[in-house]
């Protein structure tokens, strides 16, 4: 799992949340999107809890 996929999930969550802000939501569609939203939110929470950064010190030397 990468930061890219995590940020994609967070973006998707924001889009879904924005959809619910609309006035005339069809209730069937709303329930389907809600299931999607909660599934993504659970995955994102798991990622946030588990992901670690990969730190690499370059072998390249920068002295003369």
């Amino acid at each position, binding site marked *: *799992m*990468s*930061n*890219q996929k*995590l*940020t994609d999930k*967070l973006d998707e*969550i*924001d889009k*879904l*949340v924005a959809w*619910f*802000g609309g006035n005339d*939501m069809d*209730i069937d569609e*709303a*329930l389907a999107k*809600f299931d999607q*939203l*909660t599934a993504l*939110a659970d995955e*994102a*929470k798991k*990622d*946030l*809890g*588990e*992901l*670690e*950064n*990969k*730190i*690499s*010190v*370059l072998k*390249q030397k*920068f*002295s*003369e």
Partner: protein
Amino acid sequence: MENGQTPRFSVSDFLAVVNQSLEVAFGIVEIEGEVSSFKVNHQKYVFFDLKDDSGSVACFMSVWQLRTQIEDGMRVVVRAAPKVTPWGKFSLTVQEIKPVGEGSIKRAQELLRQKLDKEGLFSVERKRLLPRIPGHIGVVSSVEAAGYKDFIKLLGERWGGLTVDVANVQVQGDSSPAQIVRAIEYFNSAKQPPEVIVIIRGGGAADDLAAFNDEAVVRAIATSRIPTLVGVGHETDETLSDLAADVRASTPSHAAQIIAPDRREVLSALDTKVDRVIGEVSARRASLENDVVASVELALSRIDSKLGLLKNRYFSAEAVMRQLDPRAVLRRGYAIVRTDNKPMSIVVEGDLIAIETDKYNIEAEVKDVQPKINR
């Protein structure tokens, strides 16, 4: 040369011997003094005098060696080789010049700031936004420095899944500016360049931060194709590198806060968003339920109204029917008379008839038939 004889040279030979002697005796020296008569000729050659209370020496250097802004009155240290020119003039050929003392250092920095500001290196229009959560970060710092360790630690606490490539450089000292410049150029020319370059070092004295006021470093940051974030020193320190960067952090820790969101805040915001959506869906469902109930109630009310009308019609019809019911006529005292095989209009004397009243069925024989006279 014989003993006791004064050596005799040609002018050129003498000058060569003097220069050789100077090279042997001194080589490279460092001399501290005050600058005066500073000038640049043809944008290539720098001339000035270095003086103190009782002496003065001429200095010469190339413009490209001038890494700091100099003006008359500044106190400086030059690293130079003493020489006598072909015209017999003694001077110092300067390799390096640095301001010394807080006043001179600040003045040099201010002069450089004005020069670069005039070129537009610090203008707000040049500033770029950093990517929202950059997945690939390039760090320019010393891995031994406390500032670097603070940055990495806080970054790890705040977010995960980031790829961080670290260019390990000296962040103070004479060789630091060149190393920082090389590191920035390295990231800019990488096959997979990072999305942001973070240049950091912890707090220190003005001398310690001097590399971040170096003209070459400032230009490298300003011209980096990759957006830059500089976090140098403490909150109150401001270097020229800070001004040139796309985004300035007050410290290395602040740089970590700028680069990455706090995962705890994001988690909390996620919960809030989901709760809000639950609220919106529930409200929508309640609204729909109300609509359905209202529709059903309306339909029922219409049905009731229709039923009421039908009832009224029924009861009206019933009342009429009751009136028309022959049995009602009998109850009023009338009787129904019937014959067996012929209409009542042609009965004759002796026919048998059946008479139905409200209470009795009577069999009778016709005694007499007289036509009725209409009145």
